[in-house]
């Protein structure tokens, strides 16, 4: 008997959720604001990203591979070590250096080739620089700094050298050093943050403002059903945004997707849920559209823009701010996306970032469960 009641309850609950989703969907497609946020905003963001941004880079971790072993090579490496721009780390094989680069532990590899000292005295020596191109801006700056450091060193060594030492640089993961490669993952993060947190907080606050929640509460509907009714449509809208961004990236900007689509989709779904939970949490505390929008922009969008590693390299931030970035879900999503788009399915990057997002989601879901009540004030 009790099981029969339970199933009929479950069915009634599903029917109510379906009704709320249908209602939300109708409102969404009739509301120009959600269309604007889904379509107009990405266009504006593309324009914004098109402009170059000047970025300062400090303490860039570099892997240094000395294949020569001469005192001249040691002098050059010492020059890099003395610079405040780099944090060189000696490695013994190119393979080890590659692994560090893939894992994101270093930003570039400097290789001093065999017979470097001999070639330098004969003229026409070169060091090789491999830079991770996932962040095109940073890559370009690292390139310039390394070249500058090598040039300065070779000028000082001029009497002993037959000619200047060149830097042969290679970009990995983004061989064309196209900033759009870097733009598309960034766009996805911003669009998902806006739809997930901002739009959701706004539509919930709108229900409080217009008094519609008050009427809705006094029906058999449960608080969790209202939450799901809000979550599902905006989750779907976020996925539409994701697909549009990926398609635009692939066919308009020819951005490669080196990792698997499954990882891209899975990671995005995870982040979308986190963003939705933040939006719902904010709107449960703030019942006014204006304040809700300000707060979500401040708490999600701005940090996603500035502190997620999407624009500015995390390593060049002062330590306290860098510590703060660990609290931002966008940070983990940016790492996931950049890897998936530009490097491939590098599990050493994907797994820890995905786990961090899972932990955040669990925490937010718990918080949401405790604050959500069908009650005013």
């Amino acid at each position: 008997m009790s099981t029969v009641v339970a199933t009929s309850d479950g069915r009634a609950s599903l029917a109510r959720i379906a009704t709320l989703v249908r209602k939300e969907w109708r409102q969404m497609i009739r509301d120009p604001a959600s269309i604007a946020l889904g379509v107009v905003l990405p266009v504006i963001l593309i324009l914004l990203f098109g402009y170059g941004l000047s970025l300062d880079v400090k303490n860039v971790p570099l892997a240094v591979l000395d294949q020569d072993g001469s005192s001249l090579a040691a002098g050059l490496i010492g020059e890099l070590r003395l610079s405040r721009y780099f944090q060189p780390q000696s490695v013994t094989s190119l393979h080890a250096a590659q692994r560090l680069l893939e894992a994101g532990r270093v930003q570039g590899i400097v290789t001093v080739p065999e017979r470097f000292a001999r070639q330098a005295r004969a003229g026409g020596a070169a060091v090789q620089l491999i830079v991770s191109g996932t962040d095109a801006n940073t890559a370009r700056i690292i390139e310039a700094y390394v070249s500058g450091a090598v040039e300065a060193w070779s000028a000082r060594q001029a009497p002993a050298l037959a000619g200047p030492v060149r830097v042969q640089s290679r970009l990995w993961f983004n061989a064309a050093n196209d900033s759009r490669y870097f733009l598309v993952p960034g766009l996805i993060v911003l669009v998902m943050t806006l739809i997930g947190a901002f739009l959701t907080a706004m539509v919930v606050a709108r229900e409080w403002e217009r008094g519609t929640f008050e009427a809705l509460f006094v029906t058999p509907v449960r608080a969790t059903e209202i939450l799901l009714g809000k979550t599902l449509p905006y989750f779907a809208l976020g996925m539409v945004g994701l697909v549009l961004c990926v398609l635009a990236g692939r066919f308009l900007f020819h951005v490669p997707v080196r990792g698997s689509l499954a990882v891209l989709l899975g990671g995005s779904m995870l982040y979308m849920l986190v963003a939705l939970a933040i939006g719902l949490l904010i709107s449960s505390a703030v019942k006014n559209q204006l304040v809700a929008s300000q707060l979500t922009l401040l708490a999600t969008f701005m940090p996603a823009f500035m502190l997620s590693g999407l624009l500015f390299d995390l390593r060049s931030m002062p330590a306290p701010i860098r510590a703060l970035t660990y609290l931002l879900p966008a940070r983990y999503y940016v790492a996931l996306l950049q890897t998936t788009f530009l490097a491939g399915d590098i599990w050493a990057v994907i797994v820890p970032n995905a786990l961090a997002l899972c932990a955040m989601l669990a925490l937010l879901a718990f918080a949401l469960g405790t604050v959500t009540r069908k009650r005013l004030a």
Partner: protein
Amino acid sequence: MSAASAPVLECREVYKSFGPRAAALLGVSLEVPSGSLSALVGPDGAGKSTLIRLACGLLRAERGSVRVLGFDAAVAAQCIQDRVSYMPQKFGLYEDLTVRENLDLYADLHGVSQAQRAQRYPELLHMTDLQRFEQRLAGRLSGGMKQKLGLACTLVRPPELLLLDEPTVGVDPLSRRELWQIVHDLVREQGLTVLISTAYLDEAERADRVIVLQAGRVLAEGTPAAVTQLAAGRTFRLTPSGRESARTLQARLLGSQAVIDAVPDAGGVRCVCAAQHGDGIPGGVPVEPRFEDGFMVMLRRTQSQSAHADIALAHPPPQANGALIEVRDLVKRFGAFTAVDRVSFSVARGEIFGLLGPNGAGKTTTFRMLCGLLTPSGGVLRVGGIDVARAGDAARGQLGYVAQKFSLYGPLSARENLEFFASAYGLRGATRRARIEWAIHQFELTHASGPAGDLPGGFKQRLAMAAALLHEPRILFLDEPTSGADPLARRAFWRRITALADQGVTVVVTTHFMQEAEYCDRIVIMDAGRVLAQGTPAQVRACAPREGEFEPSMEDAFVAVVERSRAGEARAAARTA
């Protein structure tokens, strides 16, 4: 269900406050019996909404118990919410869904089957007269239609208790009558139990039972007749003699110790005596008491009428010939929507001019244009002989404006607000000090300490009026000044306005309380942006068919005028079709 005699809603010693300074309910006990229509009556801030929300399980009481249908609202809110229906004060409709979609949403949530809907929807749509608008977006309905749709949504299945929070506020008198008729029929024909809250005292008479709430306490609970009976043998009607206007007679009567209440009424004055014999009122004809009369008797037991509601102006405005305000063919369009459609009227010095109409009639838009806050799309607008469109600042200098919402600075004290506005009007030195002292003295603001935002409603309104009069304007604009105020505050307000007009200040006022039109020298009735009737209250009242001994009320006139206009429109539409 238990016995039918058990109360559907039962409150015992309920306390609820919102913060230390905002007590909403102070030990409320009441009962709503099954199958009855109960009205919760009281001014804004009396605790009506709080009580209804407690009954819905949307708020939790600090002390005392709230039981609905036998369930404790504090622990079994969902059980209550499954069985009752509630219409909040703010519509609670989804404006971007159609009429049909709104109904479907609530039917789905209540698990109403398709077969039940097929039977119920036509009934609901017929009852609310919304058949033609099934596919229209709720946001595009008029205020009255929205309320009726909101009501229909609560009735998708028969609720065991229907809770309506001020469903008639801001709705035109015609729609108000229709709404009450619907609720009445529901109780009579379907045996529904209804609790409806209202600030309109005349509506309480239509209920089986009334609960009078004042400042968080129950003043009375019983039949409306029992409240009305409190004024039995004490109500009289007086007709002004000679040149005296009903307004001045009313002001004179209110000043008398023997009189509890006096209001202008259809050309005369209704008054309620303090004692139970009428010989204290010479020339008074005994009349049947109304609910409001009994209510005033009750209210005066706990509160005394403000002794000092008169105002003495330091410098009465100069004499003026011709119209001080002239409006000709005024038009305001917002996109394709015409908010004000060829409105014309003129106001002379010292007149009280009333703009009447439901929400959305165009009153506030007209007002904003008069004050130079909105630019008209067409027509002539002269205030004090100055074209507002050309010289808005010069025109604004001679007028004071009291906005509908409290628009002073909440965190500042009353005096600080006055100081700010005095400076904003360019008052300096001794004049500034004198004007501020005048305002504080005349409007009894001496004891108003603390932030203005925390003052009681009546104080706020006096402060707003004081601020608007600091620069001694010739013209005073007041937008819905009495909306939501308690009857005593409303009487005091009109006494001040009358005193101002007697001293030569020209007053333009909007209101949706039809009886208040009787205080005005001349009025216009507006609906959907157009002027439907214009003239003295007596002339406008004459638009309504005369029934019985006394003149029809202003509300009868309004209903007659609007019905005639809408019928004319329907005929015109039929001709073009």
